[in-house]
């Protein structure tokens, strides 16, 4: 994003993780909403708006039959205006900071500087939707209704939309034009459940396998965390494969209990690596030097 970066400022990383330091001085490592999730949230919102619009229109058309047409017409016009311009603004300005679509996908609009989201920011970011989505749409609709769809105009409208539609993909922070003007970005605030503690001993009666230092020196943090993931997902074939690989490398006999073996190995390795970390010797992966005594 050449025109929009301060000179000398480091490029944001390629991942969607952004460092974000709270007033307490802790880096929260925010995760930005991916372009896919953002698009899905928008589709969901657009779909909901369309359903509401169609239902209300049918209801109004039905009621107009029974008289009182003027009041209903006025209400419909105002309702349409509020739906088009207010849906995003009113939902995002409320404490949730998210429209129903964003809520469903675990997204939230926040100010880039971490301050409270102001009404001005929300209005600015959503007014830009007018030129991103509604302008080309209504333009095409107008053209189509007049049966004078000029190829040139269609191409123009499409390329206009494409520029704005794919704008989030052209910068690493996934900012829309609206985010740029409003000073906001969209972060993931999905709920994460605290999984079971695989490091804890759930049963004390089962004898724990013991491993020699040489066996535990085979792996580092990266391998440990991969093993953690394998244990958490718990697919039997993955566990069998990993157990086989570890046994082969450590030259240990097969005792028929893959899960128990891996759990014990995980604990022993975790304890050893943590102890090394306490002493300032973090072993990031299996290629790094051992955390044990050197020499």
């Amino acid at each position, binding site marked *: 994003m050449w025109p*929009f*970066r*301060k000179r000398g400022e480091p490029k944001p990383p390629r991942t969607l993780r952004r460092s974000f330091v*709270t007033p*307490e001085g*802790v880096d*929260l*490592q*925010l995760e930005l909403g991916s372009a896919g999730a953002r698009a899905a949230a928008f589709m969901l919102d657009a779909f909901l708006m369309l359903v509401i619009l169609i239902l209300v229109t049918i209801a109004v058309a039905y009621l107009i039959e029974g008289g009182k047409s*003027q009041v209903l017409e*006025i209400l419909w*016009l*105002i309702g*349409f*205006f509020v739906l088009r*311009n207010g849906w995003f603004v009113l939902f995002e300005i*409320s*404490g949730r*900071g998210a429209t129903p679509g964003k809520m469903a996908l675990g997204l*939230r609009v926040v100010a880039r500087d*971490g*301050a*409270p*989201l*102001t*009404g*001005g*920011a929300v*209005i*600015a970011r959503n*007014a*830009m939707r*007018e*030129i991103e989505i509604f302008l080309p749409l209504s333009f095409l609709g107008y053209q189509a209704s007049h049966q004078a769809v000029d190829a040139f105009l269609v191409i123009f409208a499409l390329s206009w939309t494409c520029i704005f539609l794919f704008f989030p993909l052209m910068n690493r922070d996934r900012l829309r034009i609206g985010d*740029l*003007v*409003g*000073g906001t970005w969209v*972060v993931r*605030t999905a*709920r*994460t459940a*605290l*999984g079971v*503690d*695989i*490091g*804890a*001993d759930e049963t*004390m009666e089962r004898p724990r396998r013991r491993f020699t230092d040489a066996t535990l020196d085979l792996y580092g943090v990266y391998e*440990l*965390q991969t093993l*953690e993931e394998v244990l*958490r997902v718990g697919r039997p074939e993955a566990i069998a494969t990993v157990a086989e690989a570890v046994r082969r490398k450590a030259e240990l006999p097969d005792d028929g209990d893959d899960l128990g073996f891996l759990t014990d190995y995980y*604990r022993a390795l*975790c*304890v050893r690596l*943590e102890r090394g*970390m*306490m002493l300032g010797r973090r072993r990031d992966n299996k290629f790094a030097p051992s955390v044990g005594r050197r020499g």
Partner: protein
Amino acid sequence: MNAPADMPLVNASRFRATHEMDWKRLEGIVNRIERRGIGALTEGDLLMLPLLYRSALSALSVARETSLDRALVAYLEALCTRAYFQIYGVPTSFWTQLKDFFARGWPQAVQALWRETLASFLLTVIAAVAAFLIVRHDPSLFYAIIPDSLANGRDPSASAQALRDTLYNSKHQEDGLAVFATALFTHNAQIAIFAFALGFAFAIPTVLLIAYNGLMLGAFLAVFAAKGLGVEAAGWLTIHGTTEIFAIILSGAAGFRIGTAIAFPGRAARTDFAFTVGRQASVAMAGAVVMLILAGLLEGIGRQTVQVDLERYAIGLSVLTGWLLYFYLPRKRHVAVS
């Protein structure tokens, strides 16, 4: 540290056993706020929230340094992020924001736009005068400026009587007027939002939009002036037009501001400048929509009930004076609330 024999050996597990209750409680509180708002909390929970949040934050720092359990760190990160935004990121309540908007935010935003407002106003006036002169000189050019659907019979070919009828006691459109006024309001409000949003393209489309608005104004007045109805037409326009045209001018000014901020950020970084300006200009734009609602009301009610030119001028001009006083009257500076 000598851990008892039955304590788990893994750091993360010991750590978890000590703090898990607090995290669960924080999670419960945050869940409740996210679902039902801050009002759903008991007093005790409300007092505990910041404490629990800080302890979870420090647990996160500790876990990052001492624990290798990735799921634990991920859980704490997600929990702290959610709690952070409930504590620091929540906007003040909707009604407080609304009150602040009318008391300070709106007039301040309009004041900050005074240069752009002047430019937008001059553009409208120049375009209107130009269109007026053009149409007086060559009435056929009227059709080049105004589409038929908008002219609604008010074109150079109309008789003086027909034109006069559109200004006073227009019986033929009386029943549809309320609907028409609403349609006009939503249309104008959409234009105001466009004028703001299109400012992003270096304000060029906004300039065109504002100039076109001025052209239409001048062309209409020229048609009426040709039949000696200039003063009456201006009175008909003044009653709601002062508010309506002022609103369009202001939203145009908001668009100009965005465009110039992006084109010429000065010493500030473009992104930083774009949003400080964007947030304030959008407040002015929202204000313009409020003005258009009022203009719609004035049009729907005032035009029918007030038939005397002098009264029309009086109402229109006093409303305009009201706006000018509201926006530009010097007032005590409060601490800037962005």
